[in-house]
């Protein structure tokens, strides 16, 4: 299972890097989204995938999954939700003002143009 997860995470990172290196702003933001998904899966895998039942308080359960990575992932998901939402707003505003979503055209400042 861990091997399968590693391959999946690697694939997500590959796609994320490809998208982040592209020119279009929207693709870059989707890329950062994939990157954070990969990161969260990696965090889950790093905590170990063992454990029969959910880490919820109940009697007679001894073999439960490690709850800490899950808590960390939840926190990380909330944060990446916020950052993605913010960068979408920003991308939209930038598109309106600069009139392009091409990163190549966003280089340089007004003085040097």
């Amino acid at each position, binding site marked *: 299972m861990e091997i399968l997860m590693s391959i999946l995470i690697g694939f997500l990172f590959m796609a994320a890097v490809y998208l982040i290196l592209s020119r279009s702003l929207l693709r870059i933001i989707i890329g*950062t989204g994939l990157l954070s998904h*990969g990161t*969260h899966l990696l965090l889950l895998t*790093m*905590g170990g995938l063992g454990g029969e039942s959910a880490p919820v308080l109940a009697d007679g359960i001894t073999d439960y999954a490690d709850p800490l990575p899950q808590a960390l992932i939840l926190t990380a998901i909330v*944060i990446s939700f916020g*950052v993605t939402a913010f960068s979408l707003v920003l991308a939209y*505003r930038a598109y309106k003002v600069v009139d392009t979503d091409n990163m190549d055209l966003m280089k340089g400042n007004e003085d040097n143009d």
Partner: protein
Amino acid sequence: MINLLLFPVLIPFLFAAVLLLFPKKVKAQRIVTMIGLLFALASSFVLLYKVKVDGVQTLTLGSWAPPFGITMVSDMLSALLVTSSLLIVFFVVWYSFTSIGEEREKAFYYPAILFMLTGVNGAFTTGDIFNMFVFFEVLLMSSYVLIVLGGEKIQLKESIKYIIVNVVSSSLFVITVGYLYSVVGTLNMADISVKLAEIGPSGIVTVIAVLFLIVFGIKGGIFPLFFWLPGSYAAPPIPVLALFGALLTKVGVYAIMRTYTLFFTSDVGYTHNLLMILSILTIVVGCIGALAYFDVKQIIIYNIVIAVGVILFGASVMNESGMMGSVFYLIHDILIKGALFLFIGIIIKITGTSDLRKMGGLIKRYPMLGWSYLIVAFGLAGIPPLSGFIGKLLIVQGGFEAELLWQSIFILASSLLVLLSAIRIFIYAFWGEEKGEHLISPKKYRHLLAPAITLAGITVLYGVGAEYLVPFMADAANVLLDPSIYVDAVFEGVK
């Protein structure tokens, strides 16, 4: 009051939440922000006193026992950093009253600053590596808001790059924490220190150490990861630039110092040598940048990069004088960069340009500005008895003690280049023929000058009164050099 160490984190957060309720009332925003900062500053001074008298303060949130709960730790280094960041924010907010413009003040400018302060102080205070990530995100989110606030074209362009770089580095941070968790099975920094010492030198730990260096290096702007810094920092208005330049890179530097003294002490030959080499290269690149530009903003921004290199060099030698010098220089740099940015902000406001070639002769009409800028510039370069001197002296002394002869001489030589770059601004802007028109009313000029000169006065006091600060710095260096003090304080009463 066992919760005292949280006050510098909580008070800005509380006041920021209150400020969200009435964004359009500019007067009330200013007053409430100032009150909040004064309260926080007072609590941080009390904290500083308490840490000095009683030693390291710790608190584990939610009454859980460490290492299970999130521990907050306030040792001398973090108490000093918290106090100086509150101080710098206080002056920048004061300066903002006349500088930032009402439009931005109505667009959540002050709440964003206070949220950022929460993140900065939290990152300095936390004793949990994942919680550090959370506080990093708090400060980054607020910095995203601050960098785009106003929505000028250049800001929008640059902030996108800033956000993407930081999102990638944050992902890397989580990945690294994941690796660390899989190796030691804990997130509490004191506990990690104990567990890593048990494991001893091993390949995976070195990999994690280098990954942490990359993560914090991107935030802190060390070579070769500083590439995003000059462009992004030049985009926002001066008060925001002053905050970023004085505080944000220092959080990265603090994190490197903390992790490299507390966690990764088993393979010093590799990790700390790498840190040393990178810090020297950082200084080289910073000097080149600082001398190459005619743009005052860029000159000072590259000086941030130089300072990061100097501080990390002192931290990498891992002996008492080097470490104490690093702490001295870290606090000095927070104060002096804030002051410098405020001064060049006034110059830019007067002349309406940041290009040195288009200004000149300011000394005739603005002598106070000129001479106090000169004092701060001397302080930056480290001319005795001003504030940069003692830190650099101790760092170089630490370098000699560690038998790093050439590197130490190089640090000394770099001071000359720093002096040259700062004096160049003085020569171009203040000497020579008067050029251009002066775009600022005398009243506004006085209002801008007051916070800048007060801050400059504090940096002078910091240098002249260095002798009284030595015990504080020695305490900070002791905790850094001897992780067991930190660990014992966290586990006091548990084991």
